[in-house]
């Protein structure tokens, strides 16, 4: 091994020290199809010496097969990924690129150009510190350019670099470039971008990518790579401390640490903190890093905190500077970008994830939709994929937050569909709505549909009928447990229980049996009006009564579930000892013995509970529900 003092070794060590200490710039790059984004990126990486030689060779080979340059090297091919997109010649998703110099490492979100892929820009723009927007020098600022800048702006990107490409095709004309540069600056200003810069390039000829081009002597600024190395970074170190609790680390009774990544500010031992939204206060006892205690830590750092007092803190809470806690609200004005092919409907229930908190949410009102090209406000009752709306949002509980413009981590959220579990929307909290200002509630008439909507479900009546001991209650209970676990609101009306209360005055004569069923059916109907899924578990032996119950409900709401076990099986089980008593003559009119059971003719679900397990039966009921 070479001695440390040898010059070559020292040079390596110095270079590595520089690399270890470099910082990061997160970039989102976007452009319309054919503006030359792929060529630009590929060429930049190649010129900067970032592409491994075997991959360059592969690109040269591929250029002969699928290149657009008549067999000459097509640098855009360096970036192609999926077979499908290569075949179709389109880019369907954000692709992540990594490169760096001794000064800085770059994480590049390469965003697709097509209008219908606006949603894919969200992931790229959401974390970006710099946006690069491609502009074709022949065309200047286009509708698409405007759209890209608008989305960057919505996601809080404060700095945009316009890469005016294909300068070779306008003969490197300074006057035309100056005109486009003015248009770009104007666009940035109107869309609220704090810093808008421009740079003249030709991806094809590598002008102003890594070195200043002799063909643009009139351009005084840095080449692209130098610009990226030198552009100032904005950090969130100055704000008040806030950390969403990600997990409670409790390996044993002696230790309870609150684990999380700091969303803003700095924290040090001894700091007074408040836990939001509960408002409990304490002091920081320890700030723990990856392998020992720290005196303090700052934004973006992943730490474990312990508090001086034993208070109740769980995942989703925010530990914050006691003097400047984040705000708390349950209703918000927000911007929302819809991602799913199934449109957003106001009043529908979704799950919302904000930092580490997940809870039920609904959009109560779409105030307007934003035309992505003109920024005009359009009326809207729904949001389709790729559409952006300004909305009011209502959460199931209060949460701690910051307006997105102040903090991305505490103001950016996603919406998740409860059924498919897909991520269907993303948005930015603009401001909290105080309850008394909250006029939108009056927009919704509180009717049956509204009550059901707030629960995110279709109300139903599941009518379990069958002999005593057939398994009605067992199966109904299993079904309810499953539904409950999936977030549905349910209630069970069980024969035995109702007879102890509401129907205490009724016996087992035919007339009383009819009244028994009538009352239960009416109660079930009221509960359906309240939006619930009602599981009725009654022997209900007579066809006529069951039909009477069915008649109270709308089509599709009532499901008759025949829990069918042969009499001898039920009698053998005799869980409650009733069959024995009936056989001994101690119970008159017992169904199956002293009184008939009329099996349903066309039940929606027919369960063979004599042979099939209760769990399987329950599963079949849930499938039949089709929720």
């Amino acid at each position, binding site marked *: *091994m070479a001695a440390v003092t040898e010059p070559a070794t020292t040079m*390596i*060590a110095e*270079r*590595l020290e520089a*690399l*270890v200490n*470099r*910082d*990061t710039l997160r970039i989102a790059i976007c452009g319309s199809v054919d503006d030359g984004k792929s060529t630009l990126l590929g060429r930049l990486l190649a010129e900067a010496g970032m*592409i*491994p*030689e*075997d991959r360059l060779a*592969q690109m040269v080979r591929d250029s002969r097969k699928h290149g657009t340059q008549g067999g000459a090297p097509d640098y855009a091919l360096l*970036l*192609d*990924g*999926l*077979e*499908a997109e290569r075949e179709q010649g389109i880019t*369907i*998703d954000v*692709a992540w690129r*990594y490169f*760096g110099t001794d000064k*800085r490492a770059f994480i590049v979100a390469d965003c697709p150009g097509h209008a219908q892929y606006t*949603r894919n820009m*969200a*992931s790229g723009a*959401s*974390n970006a510190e710099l946006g690069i927007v491609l502009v074709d020098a022949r065309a200047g600022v286009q509708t698409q350019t405007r759209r890209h800048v608008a989305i960057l702006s919505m996601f809080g990107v404060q700095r945009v670099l316009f890469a005016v490409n294909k300068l070779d095709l306008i003969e490197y004309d300074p006057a035309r470039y100056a005109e486009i540069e003015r248009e770009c600056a104007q666009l940035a200003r109107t869309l609220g971008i704090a810093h808008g810069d421009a740079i003249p390039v030709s991806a094809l000829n590598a002008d102003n990518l890594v070195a200043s081009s002799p063909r643009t002597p009139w351009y005084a600024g840095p080449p692209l790579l130098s610009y990226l190395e030198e552009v100032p970074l904005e950090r969130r170190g100055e704000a008040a401390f806030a950390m969403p609790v*990600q*997990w409670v*680390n409790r390996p044993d009774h002696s*230790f309870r*640490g609150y*684990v999380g*990544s700091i969303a803003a500010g700095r924290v040090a031992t001894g700091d007074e903190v408040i836990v939001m939204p509960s408002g409990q206060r304490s002091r920081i006892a320890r700030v*723990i*890093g*990856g*392998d*020992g205690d*720290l*005196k303090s830590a700052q934004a*973006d750092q*992943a730490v*474990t905190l312990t508090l001086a007092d034993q208070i109740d803190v769980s995942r989703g809470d925010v530990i914050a500077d006691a003097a400047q806690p984040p705000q708390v609200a349950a209703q918000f004005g927000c911007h929302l970008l819809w*991602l799913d092919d199934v449109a957003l409907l106001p009043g529908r229930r979704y799950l919302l*994830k904000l930092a580490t908190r997940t809870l039920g949410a609904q959009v109560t009102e779409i105030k307007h939709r934003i035309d992505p090209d003109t920024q005009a406000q359009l009326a809207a009752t729904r949001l389709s994929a790729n559409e952006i709306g300004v909305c009011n949002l209502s959460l199931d509980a209060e949460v701690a937050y910051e307006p997105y413009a102040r903090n991305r981590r505490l103001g*950016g*959220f*996603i919406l*998740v569909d409860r059924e*498919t*579990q*897909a*991520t269907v929307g*993303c948005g930015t909290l603009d401001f909290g709505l105080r309850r008394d200002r909250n006029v939108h509630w009056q927009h919704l008439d509180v009717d049956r549909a509204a009550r059901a909507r707030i629960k995110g479900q279709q109300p139903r009546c599941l009518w379990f009928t069958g002999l005593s001991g057939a398994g009605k209650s067992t199966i109904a209970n299993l079904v309810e447990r499953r539904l409950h676990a999936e977030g549905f609101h349910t209630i069970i009306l069980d024969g035995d229980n109702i007879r102890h209360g509401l129907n205490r005055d009724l016996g087992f004569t035919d007339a009383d049996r009819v009244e028994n069923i009538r009352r239960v059916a009416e109660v079930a109907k009221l509960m359906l009006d309240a939006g619930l899924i009602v599981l009725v578990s009654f022997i209900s032996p007579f066809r006529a009564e069951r039909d009477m119950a069915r008649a109270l409900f709308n089509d599709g709401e009532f499901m008759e579930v025949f829990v069918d076990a042969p009499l001898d099986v039920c009698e053998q089980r005799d869980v409650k000892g009733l069959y024995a008593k009936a056989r001994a003559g101690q119970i008159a009119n017992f169904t199956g013995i002293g009184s008939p059971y009329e099996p349903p003719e066309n039940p929606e679900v027919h369960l063979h509970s004599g042979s099939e397990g209760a769990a399987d039966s329950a599963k079949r009921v849930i499938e039949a529900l089709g929720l």
Partner: protein
Amino acid sequence: MTGTAAFQTHLDRLEAESIRILRETVAECRKPVLLYSIGKDSSVLLHLLLKAFYPARPPLPLLHVNTTWKFREMIEFRDRIARETGVELIEYINREGIGKTDPLNDPSRHTYVMKTQALRQALADHGFDAAIGGARRDEDPARAKERVISLRGAGQRWEPRKQRPEPWSLFNTRLAGDETLRVFPLSDWTELDVWLYIRRENIPVVPLYFAAERPVIERKGALLVYDDDRMPLNDGEVPQPRRVRFRTLGCWPLTAAVESTASNLDEIIDEMLETRVSERAGRIIDHDPSDSMERKKREGYF
């Protein structure tokens, strides 16, 4: 106390973000596991895992899918690391494949049965709903669009169209039906980042990464280090001592070594900055069409 370390470098940020991803997985998933493949990326991943839950021990096990053709030094290293860290290590071998597949004659089938299929079985047998792996996006163009948290449908298949957007790195870990997750905390790391971090943190790695004299045979231009006598030698083939090292580690008959004198971390990094050949070039199995990674991914390989 280590005081107020300046937190601002690229490596600091990569580290913090990876730790956040590991913690989020543990906080939200029912039964996560960390896929430990003994290589440098796994070493980094394990190091991050220990940091993420310090001062407690990580609340999840490691899973090593052993193809039975790993270098002996890898297995020794694995067992030592498991002992030293005290993290539970589960080894899974697809017993049905032993003796029936041969990496020498049919490498694709060997990889499919002993790696892809074995991994699927191991995850299903243990009921893991999230498998954390050390794959990076910069490894291969087919990975450039992979999510940090990747959704796998029935049979652990990867469906490009069902992948969830991840704005603000807000991960949606909710599952429907028989879906599972693959979690890639090192998504944003490059090969260079990995080595710089190993250097900064003094993370132990398998000695095979460092150049040393090893018994080498040359076949079709690839340098193979002869690790045990399961490989029949061709006529006139005699392992020759040569100074070589590995950039990537896998099954020994499928991983080519490179001639090198780089015997410490600084020299390795310097060599990497100078030579500029992608690390997958050393994986014999990836040498067929350039789309092979994507196809394997659809089948459930990483």
